[in-house]
């Protein structure tokens, strides 16, 4: 766990610059949000919060695609599995709780659930069996483009897709308008923006007058992006800044976008914890009804909904955590009833879930000195992650 920054001197410079600029903003605290589980992993893994100035809160928003998959969507997968359909899905989905159980529970009850790392592996699986296979598709646009590409190439006749894919730009609008969050700027996820391009955030900035900085995934990328975001806040500059130019262009990957929108249409729907997100869900277009599991099968949800969720599930504050208005440490279950081996909520299941990440690496290690000087040294020598790792 003693991974070091590639360039500790640069990291210290960036942290010092960030401290100075946040002080120049002249009010405290300033809250910014990122919307990516991989950002949270890097922030927590490298103990970055310990080097942030006290006046800056970096909050994780709805950036975990597995976590924001709503209970009724999980229920659809569970119901299909219990109806005897073979389900192929990404591993993180297995233990995400639905209204009355997870896919893992369905598997324990005799259903066949296959874990895949790629939609292409679901295609291979379907070719090797006569059974009906449903690919339960989750993930943001970065992952949805792969599903689209495979559908356009043509699926085996016994394979269909249950899409729970989500589209990130619309949810930023929702979170920006939530009065409880008071977010003043966003870090956008570099790999999603690799697909969509950074230009997609311009209408958002125009509507909300909040700066957006596209950020990469290495610790230095994130620090540099936070410095840029703080500069924009200090200078009251609401625009989009691309701090990940090695992967992200203004237009993005047009080939991937064309395939995405040929196959999917955005519709409004619930995200777990965020409520209704207009245009936030990606569903198959009518043209692809033949491979849409929702059309191929009658999904019997009523039988599941007769059972109530457990009382523990009702105490879970996953929704507030994903909305950025609560931290894992605010949850009475965190690290007690809810741990990675027996998760209560989705945020403890996924490797991109805030609770899971904080449970492994520690969330806000209390290493910041009383004065708001930076502490990159304790970050770079690994003590931050060690001390923070026991919640």
């Amino acid at each position: 766990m003693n991974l070091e920054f590639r360039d500790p001197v640069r990291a210290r410079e960036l942290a010092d610059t960030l401290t100075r600029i946040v002080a120049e903003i002249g009010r405290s605290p300033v809250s910014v949000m990122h919307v990516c589980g991989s950002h949270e992993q890097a922030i927590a893994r490298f103990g970055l919060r310990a080097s942030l100035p006290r006046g800056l809160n970096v909050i994780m928003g709805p950036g975990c695609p597995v976590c924001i998959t709503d209970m009724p969507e999980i229920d659809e997968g569970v119901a299909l599995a219990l109806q005897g359909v073979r389900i192929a899905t990404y591993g993180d989905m297995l233990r995400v709780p639905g209204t009355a159980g997870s896919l893992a529970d369905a598997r324990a009850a005799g259903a066949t659930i296959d874990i895949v790392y790629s939609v292409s592996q679901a295609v291979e699986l379907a070719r090797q069996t006569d059974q009906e296979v449903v690919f339960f598709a989750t993930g943001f646009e970065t992952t949805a483009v792969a599903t689209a590409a495979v559908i356009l190439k043509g699926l085996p006749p016994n394979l269909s897709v249950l899409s729970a894919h989500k589209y990130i730009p619309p949810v930023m609008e929702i979170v920006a308008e939530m009065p409880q969050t008071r977010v003043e700027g966003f870090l956008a996820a570099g790999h999603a923006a690799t697909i969509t391009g950074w230009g997609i955030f311009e209408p958002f900035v125009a509507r909300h007058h909040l700066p957006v900085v596209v950020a990469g995934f290495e610790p230095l990328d994130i620090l540099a992006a936070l410095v840029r975001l703080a500069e924009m806040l200090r200078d009251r500059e609401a625009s989009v800044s691309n701090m990940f130019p090695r992967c992200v262009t203004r237009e993005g990957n047009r080939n991937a976008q064309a395939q995405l929108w040929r196959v999917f249409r955005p519709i409004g729907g619930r995200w777990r914890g965020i409520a209704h997100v207009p245009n936030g869900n990606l569903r198959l277009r009518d043209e692809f009804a033949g491979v849409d599991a929702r059309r191929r099968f009658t999904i019997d949800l009523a039988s599941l909904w007769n059972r109530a969720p457990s009382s523990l599930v009702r105490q879970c504050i996953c929704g507030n955590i994903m909305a950025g208005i609560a931290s894992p440490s605010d949850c009475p279950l965190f690290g007690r009833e809810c741990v990675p081996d027996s998760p209560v909520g989705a945020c403890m299941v996924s490797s991109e879930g805030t609770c899971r990440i904080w449970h492994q690496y520690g969330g806000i290690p209390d290493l910041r000195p009383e004065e708001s000087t930076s502490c990159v040294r304790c970050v770079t020598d690994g003590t931050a992650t060690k001390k923070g790792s026991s919640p």
Partner: protein
Amino acid sequence: MCLGVPGLVIEVEDLVATVDFWGVRKRISLDLVDEPVRAGDYVLNHVGFAIRRIPPEDARATLELYEQLLKDNAGNESEDLMAADVRSEMHAANGADR
């Protein structure tokens, strides 16, 4: 699930590339990239698909970081979430010998 891992393109056949990840060769779909990819290029990969061609110097820096991460967690897959996610991206691609 939105991590991308860079790899070096060894060979291209139609829309499938053989890509080297730290000495392990995998087959990656080129269906989604929006520019021509040739042997010697680096591509950013996610769930078995190349999503962008990237400059070699940037790819190498990221590869070094992830390599260190994997080494630190060798034989300890369940321990580190980032290392596990990097490994997932490699599992997403089929082996080159298939």
